């Protein structure tokens, strides 16, 4: 479709909040491509205690005096961790050693991302859409739209920032797996038993009712109505016609469980994994259901969320707890994906709205800080027919000892040392708009019509160096 016509049809369909463009699938729901997942660490994580480790630095005050600032207390007794054969370094904090020991081979890291804000809202929008102001779809919405036309749950949201700009509707999947079984087999009396085959409504009756429902919907659609109502009726119609495909979730929800939904000893399930932890990690349920949707070939992209990172007080303890939840979740995600046989398809990206100040405040907390990081994860060798592969073990972008975002040479992305910048010829810092160019290239959607429509205006850095 020519760009002009594409824009025209897009405009006609209505881009305003809550609208959606529905294009029916050319084929049955059976997506076997890469699955893109964002993990949104909500509240502002401390990357200096994760993937951009900092210890202390010398601060020059405005009056010219200097003072030594402690960035992290762990640095008083512990050394920064290094991953052998890799550029990746990590803070010896929380459970980072477990995360990086077991999963660094799948990682590429972007550090020193200049968020240009320390506002939760603006930072969240910027991190996940590539721009401060509202109006751009998130990366997951964009990629789900590109590859998921006709899938009943192409874009799964578990909360967090999920702006779609009207190009696709997110499916909220936060809930209980047993109740999800009730939904994927809605007519079964006992959905959580394979042997109990009783139905509420005789199949013959259901067929008659469904035909009458469809006829009624067709009549409503045929009546002259307002564009808003027409659009909603189309959504309603699509939702009903696609719902049967969701029955394929049944087997995946039961993975590792018996027919009653109880965990089988030794299998990779959220319940079994939780039993190995010293705390209750509810985040695992979210991961498990999301991966079930991916394994059922119903989903292209999903947002996962975990919170607790806004540690203005008692930082070390609270941030460690939040990071522990996150890193256990990442570990479980890869284990479960492998058990489901979809680890080769997973593309995981982890970040937050910003980071935290490179110093402690009076309440032993850390406040907002506009320099961020993003962790990309992909199993080595897992190259699909669409998209590209990350550079494993590489770190792009950089920050100073005091966690300032460093300017980068636009062509080779080498960092300019803090204090050596040319005031007359400032170079760009790595910003979310550049990161989203990287994400789009990773997914192979940089030339998708919607990617072009939602332009990032980020050509001042040669991000082809990254992916």
């Amino acid at each position, binding site marked *: 479709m020519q760009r002009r016509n594409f824009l025209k049809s*897009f405009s006609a369909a209505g881009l305003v909040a809550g609208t959606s463009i529905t294009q029916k699938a050319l084929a049955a729901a059976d997506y076997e491509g890469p699955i893109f997942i964002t993990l949104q660490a909500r509240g502002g994580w401390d990357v200096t205690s994760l993937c951009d480790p900092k210890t202390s630095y010398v601060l020059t005050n405005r009056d010219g005096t200097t003072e030594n600032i402690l960035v992290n207390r762990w640095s008083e007794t512990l050394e920064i961790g290094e991953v052998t054969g890799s550029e990746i370094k990590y803070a010896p904090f929380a459970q980072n050693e477990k995360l990086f020991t077991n999963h660094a081979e799948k990682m590429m890291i972007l550090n020193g991302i200049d968020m240009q*804000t320390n506002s939760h809202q603006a930072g969240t929008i910027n991190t996940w859409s590539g721009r401060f102001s509202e109006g751009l779809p998130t990366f997951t919405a964009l990629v789900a739209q590109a590859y998921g036309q006709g899938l009943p749950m192409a874009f799964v949201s578990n909360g967090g920032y999920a702006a779609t700009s009207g190009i696709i*509707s997110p*499916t909220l999947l936060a809930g209980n797996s047993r109740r999800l079984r009730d939904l994927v087999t809605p007519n079964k009396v006992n959905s959580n038993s394979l042997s109990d085959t009783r139905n509420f409504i005789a199949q013959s009756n259901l067929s008659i009712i469904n035909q009458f429902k469809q006829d009624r919907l067709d009549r409503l659609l045929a009546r002259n109505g307002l564009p808003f109502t027409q659009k909603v009726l189309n959504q309603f119609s699509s939702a009903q016609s696609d719902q049967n495909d969701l029955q394929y979730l049944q087997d995946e929800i039961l993975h590792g469980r018996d027919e009653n939904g109880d965990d089988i000893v030794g299998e990779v399930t959220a319940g079994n994994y939780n039993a190995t932890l010293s705390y209750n990690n509810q985040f695992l349920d979210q991961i498990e259901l999301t991966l079930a949707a991916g394994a059922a070939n119903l989903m292209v992209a999903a947002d996962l969320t975990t919170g607790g990172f806004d540690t203005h007080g008692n930082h070390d303890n609270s941030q460690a707890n939040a990071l522990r939840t996150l890193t256990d979740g990442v570990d479980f995600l890869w284990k479960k994906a492998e058990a489901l046989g979809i680890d080769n398809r997973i593309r995981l990206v982890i970040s937050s709205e910003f980071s935290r100040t490179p110093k402690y405040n009076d309440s032993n907390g850390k406040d907002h800080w506009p320099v961020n990081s993003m962790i990309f994860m992909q199993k080595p060798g897992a190259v699909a027919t669409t998209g590209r592969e990350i550079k494993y073990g590489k770190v792009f972008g950089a920050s100073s000892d005091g966690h300032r975002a460093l300017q980068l040479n636009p062509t080779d992305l080498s960092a300019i040392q803090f204090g050596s910048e040319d005031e007359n010829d400032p170079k760009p810092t790595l910003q979310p708009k550049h990161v989203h160019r990287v994400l789009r290239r990773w997914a192979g959607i940089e030339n998708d019509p919607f990617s072009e429509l939602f332009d990032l205006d980020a050509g001042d850095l040669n991000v082809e160096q990254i992916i």
Partner: protein
Amino acid sequence: MASITRAQDPDELTNFTNPGDINSSCYGCHKIMDPIAGAFQSYGDFGEYLHKEAGTTTLSNVYIRDGKRWNNQDNPLRFHPGDTWYRDNLIPPGFNDKHMNTSQDYWYKTLQRKENYVDATQWLANEIVNDEQFLSGTVKFWYPAIFGSDPISVPVNTNDPDFDQRSQIYLYQQTLINKLAQNFKFRKMNLKDLLVDMVLTDQYRALDRLDINTNIELVAGQGVLLTPEQLDRKIYAITLHHWNNMSNPDSNHKLLNDFYYYYGGIDSDEIDKRTRDITSLMSLVIQRMNAEFSCRMVMDEFVLPRGDRRLFTVVDDLSSVPALAPDTAEGVYKIDLDNIRHQIAKLHFDILGEQLDDQDPEVSFTLDLFTQVWTKRINDDNFSDVPSQNSEDMMYNEYCNTGGVDWDRNVWPYKNPEQTLKAWQAVVIYLMSDFKFIYR
């Protein structure tokens, strides 16, 4: 808060530790927020009322401790016993540049005596309500509840593909908000009047594009998806039944518990945006609701005398059939087509709000559904005495969620050889899964 661009400069963030400093860019927002925070001085982090220092303050432990540790007489900016607000705060409690009595001067008894308030929050409430912006703020607060979504934010990126469209809608919405706000003021801030004004707008009432101007066509009309809370209340209002565990009328409502998030509920933490577009998974919630709910609901209706029923107040009982039954069929038959048609028209009104004549084509379509289901069963030998064995029809693997009702009793309505129960159930499912039932 969009009053000012939030601090972006790491240098500034390093050197300014007090966002109330007028020289920091933080000040743009904090000059508004901090005074309001000060008005909540009687309440602690978790809502406790004056829970420290023998019931005199809620200030932070560090601030109180430091004030006691040092000789506070030598340091007027540290905590003094009896203080209710921070002495080192650069922006005093208040609202909109109006300062409230603070610190040692401020004490609720003093205020009570002077200004007839017992707490600072009451002072704040009075100030807020008397501010001109309270009028439009109130309209914006109720806007999503009435119109189904928040008014859109001002479009700022002229390169966005929908910039023109959004600009049109933005201007329309702002004009509407201002108009409603002025009416609200004129009616002495009577909320009931405001809500009436809102539902009388074209945006709320428009059914056809002839009704309105083109600027609002994209946001006006039927099609606001009900939230799980609204749908739960609607189900009860129409049927006098909750969708819950049928054997326990006091059990949790399933739309508010088991399926709350699947149907777009929020937890106001990780999930803080309501789902406004229906998804396939959400449509399965409706299907599940009807599967579990409809049979028992219809049966409970027909158990009652006609005058005591909620929905089936036209047909006498389950013996009303639309046509002659086969000679072999058991049961007491009363060919009652007119009343069945009238009953269906009433169900269209009760469940969908459609006011239809008995001869309306939509009534005829629904009657066709009733008749098809009935005919299929009455002509099938397998249904000659169904349901009469128990709660389950073994031949058709069909089960009614009776919640402990004993179907073994060989009595009406559990014994329904006229085969009308399932026909009425089909009608209820058809209507309760309709667009007009789950949207407004």
